[in-house]
């Protein structure tokens, strides 16, 4: 049986979707087979071949604190969160560091992007746009002070968020996690799916007509709690959450693999990680979008995994009720799955005529595809799976029994840094970065960006048939990721493709591409969206492209929290390896500087007018970008293939003090917490740290936070502590810079970088800089921040 300290239980549920504004209403609609699909009232359908959607009808969404500061997606999410917290008997957490928020989303604040573009470019819309705003604003609402992050794996994001929540609890990083997903219906996804001819003009009909999807909107929230924490407060427990599986197709940016093998691998991992037998599963809440490609791939995967003569498995898609809610889908379906499990009910896909039922039987064999009406069935375990653009597959098991969860099986193993890929405004390789440090290069203007050249693809052997599809973010990520593999001498083969995964960290992800798409459809109409450009609007497209280019088929997640996402990708990758889920992980930080990104920074008053250096006490910073990929491997795995080791990843820590999303002031002390947390994770003390790779960028408000915290943490020692500040050369590249700071630490520890210019903060607060020799540096602390009051710290050591 799973030991108590690794058991995760569900103690609260919340939902809002087209068939109900709470769990009770929604469940009633599900039992009565009521569809929420109607003619849309919120987007322009002129010249569009399909005009249906499953929209939320709720006039109390604004009954929250500061509604004007929040996009509809955050409002939906907060509404579901409040219900779930009340259900769990929980309320305000007073910045409790043991309470986390993990929210999945696909299009985030896309309505605010539309508003900004079409109605006066109002600065107040900017902070509402990124996906990162959602979890931060949920945390702010209930003062959750733990890890606050968003999973941006498009249509699988909701499921992965719940999986990540369990991973955090099992790694001892949280006691309670508010997990789920949210997305709102908007012109961008509507036009995008129209351009792909993926909407069914008659409403989706999963596993039946399979003619396309119908978009929905909403939010689902599951309160995931450690069993011990729930027991201690005598909380009501719905069920256990057992294992999960996340894999990548490495095949196509929008279409799932026809053979469904990587989806089957995700399901297989979920069952294996749960420590149950597949015969324990009685119901599968399928992704079942209604497209032929998805539904057939799923049927193939179910037949191959469960056996086509297996009549014990009931399967259905609940998307006829809710529409396809994208990043919220997995979360809303988790609520359906948990209700199904705890009330011993299997939900139907509907409507089916007699003829259609007969045709379905031909397709699915003995598998029990539940049709038209819900019915009673004794259930022990329920599986929910979702697939997404970018080739992501995710599956998770909800259960009445504790199972035998295989988490943290490799917790004691050392993690080696074995490869670096660096793309920055200084050039697109590690060699170019080392050269730029040597030459003491600085940004050439207050807005700089990376440029991928044909030479880069040639050197990496990437063919035109592939790279022609990439948007700018995808180019940066593909080149840095392929460079990291090359640097690590890691050849992806059929044998090891599933042993390696990718976590992309990004601050704005596909925000620029989404803005680009919004410009196109505002000009040409919703019927004129681009099927070529639409996939780039999802934040995980960049990671998906890297997976396709490299052939990496293991874990594949994109997280977005702000600049610190470039460090969190390292922290979460360490957890994936410690969990025994993968032997190797590519952790990345990637952000781009398109003209619209610089425009946002200027409007927000954080873009400097001239080139400024860290600690320049300016009002703004140089806007930059970059993508840095870092290969992490279980030490024995790295050694067995003769890999060179730069250094070891020793610890990861996090701290948060809730302030409004878009702000940092008032959260300063949370950086101290993040550093203390990372030191504890590494099992070392402040005196063991020899240097810091920081996040100072020249903007006084940001730099003072770093300076103040380091002073409190290191005391007198700070005066002799070298602070390496990579933004001096690349500008503020958000997640790209955070990962670059980690790469700088690895280069210094390995000796590849013999030294670099460092800053020193004197006791009186004055700052001076001088060149520092890297010899003698044994342990380096790397730190970063995110708007809303989150901070992360990673420690690398020799």
């Amino acid at each position, binding site marked *: 049986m799973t030991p108590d300290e690794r058991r995760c239980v569900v103690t609260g549920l919340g939902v809002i979707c087209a068939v109900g504004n709470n769990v009770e209403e929604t469940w009633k609609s599900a039992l009565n087979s009521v569809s929420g699909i109607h003619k849309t009232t919120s987007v322009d359908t002129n010249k569009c071949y399909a005009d249906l959607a499953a929209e939320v009808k709720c006039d109390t969404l604004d009954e929250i604190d500061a509604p004007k500061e929040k996009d509809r997606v955050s409002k939906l999410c907060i509404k579901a969160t409040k219900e779930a917290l009340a259900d769990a008997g929980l309320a305000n957490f007073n910045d409790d560091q043991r309470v986390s928020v993990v929210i999945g989303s696909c299009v985030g604040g896309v309505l605010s992007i539309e508003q900004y573009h079409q109605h006066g470019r109002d600065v107040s819309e900017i902070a509402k746009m990124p996906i990162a705003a959602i979890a931060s604003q949920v945390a702010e609402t209930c003062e959750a002070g733990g890890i606050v992050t968003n999973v941006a794996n498009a249509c699988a994001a909701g499921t992965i968020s719940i999986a990540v929540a369990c991973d955090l609890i099992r790694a001892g990083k949280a006691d309670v996690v508010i997990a789920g997903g949210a997305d709102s219906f908007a012109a961008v996804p509507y036009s995008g799916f129209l351009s*792909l001819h993926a909407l069914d003009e008659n409403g989706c009909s999963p596993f039946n007509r399979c003619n396309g999807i119908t978009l929905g909107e909403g939010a689902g929230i599951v309160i995931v709690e450690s069993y011990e924490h729930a027991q201690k407060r005598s909380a009501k427990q719905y069920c256990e959450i057992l294992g999960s599986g996340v894999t990548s197709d490495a095949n196509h940016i929008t*279409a799932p693999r026809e053979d469904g093998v990587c989806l089957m691998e995700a399901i297989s991992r979920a069952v294996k990680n749960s420590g149950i037998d597949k015969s324990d599963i009685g119901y599968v809440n399928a992704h079942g979008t209604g497209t032929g490609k998805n539904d057939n791939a799923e049927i193939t995967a179910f037949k191959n995994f469960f056996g086509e003569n297996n009549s014990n498995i009931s399967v259905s898609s609940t998307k006829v009720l809710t529409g396809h809610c994208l990043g919220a889908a997995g979360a809303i379906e988790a609520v359906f799955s948990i209700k199904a499990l705890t009330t011993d009910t299997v939900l139907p896909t509907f409507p089916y005529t007699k003829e259609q039922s007969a045709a379905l039987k031909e397709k699915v064999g003995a598998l029990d595809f539940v049709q038209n009406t819900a019915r009673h069935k004794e259930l022990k375990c329920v599986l929910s799976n979702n697939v997404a653009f970018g080739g992501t597959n995710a599956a998770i098991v909800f259960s009445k029994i504790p199972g035998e969860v295989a988490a943290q099986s490799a917790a004691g193993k050392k993690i080696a840094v074995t490869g670096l890929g660096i793309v920055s405004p200084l050039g697109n390789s590690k060699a170019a970065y080392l050269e730029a440090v040597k030459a003491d290069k600085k940004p050439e203007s207050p807005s700089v960006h990376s440029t991928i050249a044909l030479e880069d693809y040639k050197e990496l052997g990437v*063919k035109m048939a*592939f790279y022609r599809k990439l948007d700018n973010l995808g180019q940066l990520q593909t080149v840095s990721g392929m460079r990291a593999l090359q640097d690590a001498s890691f050849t992806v083969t059929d044998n090891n493709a599933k042993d390696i995964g990718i976590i992309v960290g990004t601050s704005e992800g596909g925000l620029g591409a989404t803005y680009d798409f919004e410009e196109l459809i505002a000009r040409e109409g919703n019927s004129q969206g681009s099927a070529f450009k639409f996939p780039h609007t999802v934040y995980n497209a960049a990671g998906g492209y890297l997976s396709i280019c490299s052939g990496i088929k293991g874990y594949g997640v994109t997280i977005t929290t702000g600049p610190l996402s470039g460090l969190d990708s390292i922290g979460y990758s360490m957890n994936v390896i410690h969990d025994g889920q993968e032997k190797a992980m590519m952790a990345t930080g990637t952000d781009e500087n398109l003209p619209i990104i610089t425009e946002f920074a200027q409007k927000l008053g954080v873009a400097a007018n001239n080139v400024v250096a860290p600690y320049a006490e300016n009002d703004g910073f140089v806007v930059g970008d970059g993508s840095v990929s870092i290969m992490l491997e279980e030490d024995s795995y790295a050694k067995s293939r003769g890999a060179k080791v730069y250094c070891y990843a020793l610890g990861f820590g996090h701290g948060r003090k809730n302030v409004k999303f878009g702000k940092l002031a008032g959260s300063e002390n949370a950086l101290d917490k993040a550093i203390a947390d990372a030191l504890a994770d590494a099992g070392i003390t402040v005196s063991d740290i020899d240097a810091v790779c920081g996040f100072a960028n020249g903007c006084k408000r940001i730099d003072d936070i770093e300076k103040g915290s380091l002073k409190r943490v290191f005391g007198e020692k700070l005066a002799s502590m070298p602070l390496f500040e990579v933004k001096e050369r690349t500008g503020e590249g958000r997640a790209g810079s955070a990962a670059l700071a980690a790469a700088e630490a690895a280069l210094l520890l390995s000796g590849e970088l013999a030294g670099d210019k460092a800053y020193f903060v004197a006791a009186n607060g004055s700052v001076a800089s001088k060149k520092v020799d890297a010899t003698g540096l044994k342990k380096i602390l790397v730190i970063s921040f995110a708007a809303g009051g989150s901070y992360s710290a990673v420690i690398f050591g020799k």
Partner: protein
Amino acid sequence: MDQAEVKSKLKAFFMSDLGVDGDVLQYDTELFGEEIGLDSVDSLEIISFVDSNFNVSMTGVGKEHFQSINTIAAYIEAHKA
């Protein structure tokens, strides 16, 4: 619009909208082959481009007409109003 103009417009579209390198794209180059690697998503874009620029619908048209710039141009020529 004569055939040469149609072909040149198509080529410009492949380069600007589908990221194809002009150096390797001749009028008879196989579009869905290994080198250019167009796929189903790209064909949606081609259909949309041909529809709005030449007023010719290629929805549901057989694969053979999408083989190269030459075959697309020939289809447009044969079906233009």
